[in-house]
């Protein structure tokens, strides 16, 4: 191993320390946590996890989060694919301004929009539904998806399109059977980013839901404040929120290096 490889190694250790601590806490009993400092759990317990999986308000939090995140990923990609194609292949009136305007929506602080979002989604009758959160998250995910996909599509030579037309493909057939498979790495990366930003966002998700579609992260904050100091339970819930992300990373592991450059290398 070269000496400078130590740098990434130390960095990864630094990343894992707080995660280890959360994991350790989740296996400790409340008595042990309140009793004082211990590096490893002295008495391993699964009670914290058992409590989560036996309480519908807890596990429905996970199901709700997964539903709106998946919904958002599908909507964002479906809308972003044709738009990204247009940006990568054609010049049209106002294209550059439109592209920047889309990006500006990533810049809008969620805190600014929380209250108006609540009013808007209440007015259209979508408050406390999965669809409301999925649509609201489109605000920052669609621009990002368009941006990523446009990068990948611009890397595909235009000759591919022209050859397909010469061969008699119609546009929808070309798009679905030739073009999308060509940029499937890009689609994977865009889906990863949509999943990521929808999964980690809490402010809008919390504002737009009450009971029916309440996300897991919101269940956590409410439990933390109402049930006092249940650190073990909180830690176990935290650990469980990391798992879906870890699974998604595993699927895109081969694209991480190239994909994170959003197709712009």
């Amino acid at each position, binding site marked *: 191993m*070269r000496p400078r490889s130590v*740098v*990434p190694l130390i*960095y*990864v250790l630094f*990343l*894992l320390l*707080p*995660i*280890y*601590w959360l994991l350790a*806490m989740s296996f400790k009993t409340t008595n042990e946590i309140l009793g*004082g400092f211990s*590096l490893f759990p002295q008495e391993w317990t699964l009670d914290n996890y058992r409590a989560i999986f036996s309480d519908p308000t807890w596990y429905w939090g996970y199901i709700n989060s997964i539903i709106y995140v998946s919904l958002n990923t599908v909507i964002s990609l479906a*809308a972003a694919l*044709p*738009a990204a*194609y247009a940006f990568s*292949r*054609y*010049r*049209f*009136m106002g294209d550059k301004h439109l592209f920047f305007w*889309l990006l*500006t*929506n990533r*810049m*809008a*602080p*969620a*805190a*600014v*929009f929380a*209250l*108006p979002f609540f*009013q*808007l989604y209440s007015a259209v009758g979508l408050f406390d539904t999965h669809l409301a959160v999925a649509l609201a998250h489109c605000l920052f995910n*669609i621009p990002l998806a368009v941006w990523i996909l446009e990068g990948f599509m611009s890397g595909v030579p235009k000759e591919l399109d022209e050859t397909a037309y010469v061969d008699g493909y119609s546009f929808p057939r070309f798009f679905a059977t030739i073009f999308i498979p060509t940029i499937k790495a890009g689609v994977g990366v865009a889906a990863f980013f949509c999943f990521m930003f929808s*999964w*980690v966002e*809490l402010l809008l998700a919390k504002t737009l839901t009450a009971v029916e579609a309440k996300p897991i*992260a919101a269940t*956590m904050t409410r439990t933390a404040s109402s049930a006092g100091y249940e*650190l073990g339970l*909180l*830690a176990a819930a*935290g650990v469980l*929120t990391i798992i879906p*992300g870890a699974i*998604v990373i595993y699927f895109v*592991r*081969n694209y*991480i*290096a*190239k994909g*994170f*450059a*959003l197709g*712009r*290398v």
Partner: protein
Amino acid sequence: MKTENQKAWFFVLPVLVLVAFNALVPLMTVVNYSVQETFGNNQFFWAGLRWFEEILRSERFHAALGRQLLFTVTILIIEVSLGIAIALAMPRKGFWVPVCLVLMALPLLIPWNVVGAMWNIFTLPDIGLLGWTLNNVVGIDYNMTTSPVAAWITVIVMDVWHWTSLVVLLCYAGLVAIPDAYYQAAKIDGASNWAVFRYIQLPKMKTVLTIAVLLRFMDSFNIYTEPFTLTGGGPGNSTTLLSIDLVKIALGQFDLGPAAAMSLIYFAITLAVSWVFYTLMTKDDQ
């Protein structure tokens, strides 16, 4: 070359409708509030630009903006330099590379309030790994709830922990795209490490670095959940960043007019800075 085709607008239409629904309606609501005064009961009175003048002159806003700028500049400097250094030190191939990349991406996928809660548990002075170690092994009197300096350092370290990986992954993607022939040519020419970095690696990373800086600027300037979960803006007001202060005014005090005016000023600042980055970035594309 791209062809001129106005029908492309039809392709963009779904995106336009979805984003406009989410962006324009709330934005108009905010604009609406920002020029009116309300005493509750859904009664509104025209206030003109009074809130804007008030906010722009208020010391509270200046202080929050100052803290926000300090935070954003600090984390940008640390994360970008650290990110480049780690990406350069990463091996290009090998069994451990994908493992490292996956582990590095992990913090990016943790919900933001869990990040805050996790760091809270990690830094508790009596039972947190970091807090306990600092107090009992290193011998520093560390308590985030009483010392503003400790709170600031913790918030910054948390953000570095959370987001440096994004910069690393972007830079790494830029670096692996450099063909080996470039390095061989540099070796034949007897180029120093610095020259290789300055004339081969840095230019290749320029695009991805701009993306990294742009994303990190936008997201750190809008940061709310993590520091709020960690410190609640305290002790006192010491870690009350712009959006924490904004939520305090809007939902805590229910001063909708000033909060809306502040939102728009806030948005305008983010927009202006991001526009500069964006123009720099697209200038290189052409």
